[in-house]
């Protein structure tokens, strides 16, 4: 059976009798990808789980008004990113009133997560990626971590393959430079 396109799923979602079924299909298609995206931003599983669920509630509520000026995944990705950022911002505020070193608090929190096996190199890479401009972050994460092809990214982000390659190249160059300068 042919798989429904994102546009068809959105259309079905707007039909009350098909809404839940369509949303289940959207979840099946994207929940795992979004989870990993969020997880790479916030590192800790429990936090990623909460943020993913909040993201999905926003998607459920926002999908009727989605104007489809970007691909569905890109739109969901942005909501997930903003949810994660809101979470990190709140964490930042919480840390501001604590007397312990904020870096230690983050490291200890990650270390206490039984589902994280990262080393110092990964933590450094995570920090450097977060310093990149958002578009480069998105392109780098989609290409490097999600193994998306430039063609798929081009469809999703409505950006030319050439521009995506340039963004990825710039991101890699900056990350490499950060690693070289710290050696």
């Amino acid at each position, binding site marked *: 059976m042919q798989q429904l396109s994102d546009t068809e799923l959105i259309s079905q979602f707007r039909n009350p009798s098909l809404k839940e079924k369509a949303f289940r299909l959207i979840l099946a298609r994207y929940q795992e990808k979004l989870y990993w995206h969020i997880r790479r931003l916030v590192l800790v599983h429990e936090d990623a789980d909460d943020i993913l*669920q909040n993201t999905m509630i926003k998607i459920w509520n926002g999908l009727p008004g989605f104007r489809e000026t*970007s691909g569905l995944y890109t739109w969901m990705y942005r909501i997930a990113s903003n949810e994660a950022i809101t979470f990190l*911002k709140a964490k*930042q505020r919480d840390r501001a009133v604590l007397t312990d070193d904020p870096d230690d608090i983050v490291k200890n929190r990650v270390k206490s997560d039984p589902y994280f096996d990262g080393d110092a190199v990964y933590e450094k890479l995570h920090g450097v990626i977060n310093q990149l*401009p*958002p578009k480069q972050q998105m392109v780098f994460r989609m290409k490097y971590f999600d193994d998306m092809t430039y063609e798929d990214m081009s469809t999703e982000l409505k950006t030319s393959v050439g521009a995506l390659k340039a*963004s990825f190249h710039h991101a890699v160059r900056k*990350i490499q430079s950060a690693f070289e300068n710290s050696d």
Partner: protein
Amino acid sequence: MSEEKYIWEDKEFNKNPFRVPDGYFDHLSDRILSRVNDNPVESIKVSRRIIRPWMVWASSAAAVLVMGWFGFQNLYLRPHQEAVFQEGVSLFVDYYAQELHEGELADYIADHQIDLTTSSTVDYNYLIQIEPELTEEMIYESVNY
């Protein structure tokens, strides 16, 4: 074709150091759907029978106080901040229209000392109409993490 190896990928490097509890993804859809159903977007219809007159007065008084506070903010606090910000946004959008690279855009924010922390209080809907990615850029930058 061999895959490119990057400088950070030494032999110890683990590209995906994350794990999830066993079976986590198996029931995720059900958990999300149950939460979605617990948070319907339609406003909850409050029965008129449980609304008492004092509730109407209290909510009216609260509304007046809130409106007063926002009025005070808008009349006395925000105009200057907003004018500075709008000027920054205009420059920002003009600059963006020239299709500059995102990295240069970030440099532009820094060079012009646009205070994105204060701008985060401004209504982003205005910006979304102009340029969604610009808005996202500002949200990210305002986090400064």
